[in-house]
């Protein structure tokens, strides 16, 4: 338990004036290892620890609070500041509101597209329209169509030979025509270093008025979460994140890395394979999980 480790190191500070640099360093060494084991990116860990150290240095040890509790308070505050508070995605736009899902291969975009459609239909009384814009992966179109049919949500009839940019443009036009107020674009998985595929997303954003581009990230992602998020964020107008596969036992350090590097709110968490398995993202729960 991290708090136990803090206690062991800091207990002898009771009654002393300040948290000394040496003791803070020792404690931060434990914190550092713990965060790295949780898959938080090492650069993020470094900066985070420096921030905690700066805040802890010279902070008075209160009589009412033991030094380890004091340290935990500072540490927890810093983590909470980064992770933020639960945020609801804003769909306050003239309909149809267009959401674009993007991310690495296999991160859970197609499943999340269906989950979001169901969520907005059932919980928020919207009329979603699902758009399969992945023409590359075998049977990706079938996958989304099957899910859409299951939740009784209309979908654009994409064919494998279609151009994804044209598909998105046509689909939004159809939505406007038929009064669907929410369009969810499911795109092919791609590497952030694949220039052509990243350009394709840029084209979709320029040809279609996309209100929310969401990066879908697998909770098990390792050190590269930072590079992936940074590239997607820099090249495209990413407004939010969905963290999937939170139902496993991954510590989820990628959440901290992604939030830290992009500043984007994590709106939803995928918590299972079924179409109902979506919930709002709770930053403080994930912060505790990352800390182990």
């Amino acid at each position, binding site marked *: 338990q991290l708090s136990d480790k803090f206690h062991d190191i800091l207990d002898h500070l009771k009654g002393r004036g300040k948290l000394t640099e040496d003791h803070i360093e020792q404690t931060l060494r434990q914190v550092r290892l713990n965060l790295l084991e949780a898959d938080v990116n090492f650069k993020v860990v470094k900066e985070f620890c420096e921030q905690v150290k700066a805040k802890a240095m010279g902070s008075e040890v209160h009589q009412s609070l033991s030094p380890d509790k004091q340290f935990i308070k500072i540490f927890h505050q810093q983590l909470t500041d980064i992770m933020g508070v639960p945020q609801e995605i804003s769909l306050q736009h003239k309909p149809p509101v267009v959401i674009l899902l993007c991310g690495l291969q296999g991160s859970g975009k197609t499943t999340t597209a269906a989950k979001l459609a169901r969520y907005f239909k059932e919980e928020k009384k919207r009329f979603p329209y699902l758009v399969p814009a992945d023409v590359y992966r075998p049977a990706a179109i079938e996958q989304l169509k099957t*899910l859409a049919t299951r939740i009784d949500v209309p979908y654009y009839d994409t064919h494998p030979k279609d151009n994804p940019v044209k598909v998105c443009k046509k689909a939004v036009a159809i939505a406007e025509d038929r009064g669907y107020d929410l369009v969810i674009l499911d795109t092919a998985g791609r590497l952030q270093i694949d220039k052509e595929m990243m350009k394709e997303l840029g084209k979709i954003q320029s040809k279609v008025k996309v209100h929310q581009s969401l990066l879908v990230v697998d909770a*098990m*992602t390792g050190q590269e979460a930072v590079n992936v998020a940074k590239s997607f964020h820099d090249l495209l107008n990413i407004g939010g994140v969905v963290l999937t596969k939170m139902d496993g036992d991954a510590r989820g350090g990628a959440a901290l890395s992604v939030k830290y590097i992009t500043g984007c709110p994590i709106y939803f968490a995928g918590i299972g394979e079924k179409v109902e398995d979506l919930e709002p993202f709770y930053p403080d729960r994930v912060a505790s999980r990352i800390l182990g």
Partner: protein
Amino acid sequence: LAKDNEINEAVLSELEEILIGADMGVGTTQKLLRALKADVQAQNHGEIDLLKEYLGEEIYKILRAPSEDFEPPHRPHVMMIVGVNGVGKTTTIGKLSHRLRQEGNKVLLAAADTFRAGAVDQLKVWGDRVGATTLSQQDGSDPAAVAFDAVRAGMARGMDRVLIDTAGRLHTKVNLMEELKKVKRVIDKACPGAPHEVWLVIDATQGQNALQQARMFHGALNLTGIILTKLDSTAKGGVAVGITDELSVPITFIGVGEKIEDLRPFASREFVDALLA
């Protein structure tokens, strides 16, 4: 990581960042750096490039597979492919089948992912692409039944290889892991001794959770191989070192893209060089 050594602290930090950044994980990284610090040779040569070579050698020792007595494939040689969601199992089966077909094998694919939308269609596309028969049953049918029937068909039709695609599942889901064990038992019923291979697919973009995945799948199924996919990404797949070190399951192939030919036999030297680049 103690400060009591000849090797420059700054150099050690830099090496640590390279290893951690490659997803080697804290445990493996500490073990390797301890070995480095204990080595007199390393202590006398503080330059980072030489130290990297030393580290590379240590990692290579972990990854180098013991020379296996290559067992000639049974007929049919049955291979079960497992792993968590989205790692690349189905695509890898497509690539493996292509290789096997090019070597002249008659290949049968079993669509034992009866759960996920589009899973059977996806495997069928690959089957058609490589000239392999794909057997499937209705959505929601028992994966064990699909596997059983496919292995029996493979035997009856004189297939050289039967590849079993399974649904992705998190290793924490007890009922799903039990389902997989059942699929394995049933395959043995269809063909005693089968499956001859149980390979776990690990996604290189994942972090330390992949080690836990490997432990759980190995405990449940007794893995005979690991495939590391998505090495064409910026991820280095360093977690494979910890997995090999702890479980001694050999890495057989790596996935380096989404196309049919994007599969290569695992080459430990190349992998280590890329890891430390």
